[in-house]
């Protein structure tokens, strides 16, 4: 029997139960979002005991050595004493400097950090509505171009955090953020390699950052962006992207709609299917996939089978935990 000590209490861990499930079931206020080891919202630290390696996947080395782990994918075989990370990984306050709708369901949020935040375009931060309620949002801004952090937040029906951002958050207000995390970003080197970016909905956020970062760093190979939505109203930043395509002969933008007849200038079909039709061979290409988890997982597999090397596929599935 493995026990989890948290605060003053000790809980026996059920069979196949994660540390997160065990604590949440007992009413311990541990924040979480994706429940699948991606978003890092459920980050905890083992003050005693050693967390299993898999529960540290994706964490920075500096955190690993301090025994930080992701509670939602932590199935320890020895007793652990766990704590929330506030002392060491205190979140950073950031002031909202802009809130502008990008379309009917996606909001541009600009944040000014109170302390400088080192990040790469395409990484994500965790934004907290309160200390136990946080969600991940990808960074659309590019540090060397934009003074503030930019997010694209899609409103989900009854979404606790996205709904709050759309309805209650105001410019001038200060929120807590933590991060950055994630390895979905442009790595300089191999400047002539072809880059394919595929995203759905607000999955454009990291891609918009990665794209501008790559262009800014002088990437010379072809860069192709496929952005998809069900209908035209779901697309956004189309003007900005068309301008970029005009300015950079190696960049090509393909907006896609899957649920209605495409108007001139739009492609008809799902973004990843159109991408695979137009780019048959993924050998030696770098690929970025962001947005709907099913799209990301299907496209990842297809690109791999079409010759992409695993190390050249970067993906951020926007996992949403639909459980109450």
């Amino acid at each position: 029997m493995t026990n989890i000590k948290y605060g003053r209490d000790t809980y026996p861990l059920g069979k196949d139960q994660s540390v997160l499930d065990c604590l949440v079931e007992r009413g311990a206020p541990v924040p979480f979002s994706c429940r699948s080891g991606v978003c890092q919202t459920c980050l905890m630290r083992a003050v005693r005991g050693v967390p299993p390696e898999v529960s540290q996947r994706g964490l920075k080395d500096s955190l690993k050595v301090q025994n930080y782990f992701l509670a939602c994918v932590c199935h320890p075989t020895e007793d652990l004493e766990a704590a929330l990370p506030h002392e060491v990984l205190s979140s950073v306050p950031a002031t909202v400097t802009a809130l502008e709708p990008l379309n009917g369901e996606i909001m541009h949020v600009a944040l000014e950090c109170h302390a400088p935040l080192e990040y790469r375009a395409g990484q994500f931060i965790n934004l907290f509505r309160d200390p136990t309620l946080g969600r991940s949002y990808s960074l659309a801004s590019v540090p060397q171009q934009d003074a503030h952090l930019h997010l694209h937040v899609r409103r989900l029906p009854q979404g606790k955090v996205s709904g709050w951002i759309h309805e209650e958050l105001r410019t001038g207000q200060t929120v807590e953020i933590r991060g950055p995390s994630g390895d979905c970003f442009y790595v300089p080197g191999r400047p002539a390699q072809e880059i394919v970016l595929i995203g759905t909905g607000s999955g454009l956020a990291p891609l918009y950052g990665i794209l501008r970062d790559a262009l800014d760093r002088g990437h010379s190979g072809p860069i192709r962006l496929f952005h998809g939505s069900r209908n035209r109203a779901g697309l956004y930043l189309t003007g900005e992207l068309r301008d970029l395509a005009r300015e950079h002969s190696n960049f090509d933008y393909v907006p896609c709609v899957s649920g209605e007849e495409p108007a001139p200038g739009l492609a008809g079909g799902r973004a990843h299917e159109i991408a695979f039709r137009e780019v048959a061979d993924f050998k030696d290409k770098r690929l970025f996939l962001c947005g709907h988890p099913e799209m990301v997982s299907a496209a990842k597999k297809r690109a791999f089978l079409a010759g992409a090397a695993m190390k050249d596929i970067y993906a951020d599935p926007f996992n949403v935990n639909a459980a109450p």
Partner: protein
Amino acid sequence: MTEKKLADWWTESHASLYAKLGGEAAVNAAVDIFYRKVLADPRINRFFEGVDMEKQAAKQKAFLTMAFGGPHNYTGMDMRRGHAHLVQQGLNDSHFDAVMEHLGATMKELNVPDELIAQAAAIAESTRNDVLGR
């Protein structure tokens, strides 16, 4: 050979196979090619439906490390446990053969000499009964 000597011979010969093939670098070069063949094979790819690609790739890497005679943590018991649910779904010799075929083809593609391919195949073959739960 005594039990002890046999064990030493096994460790030495296999450690050297791993070294001869190029150690971890060889495994890294092989894993994408091998896994792509496995995923694309209609005889066996249903066993990989819906699994997380990254996690599965890590397993493929562990398998190749073992086949190349490198350091690994598998025991017969783990092999049994790890494949029991697949055996329930009908995993049998024909599927094991398909995997062996891809292992050989992968190494051929990487221009590994036949004699080393045979050695790696023998190591992989030695897990057959455990994998198939016999």
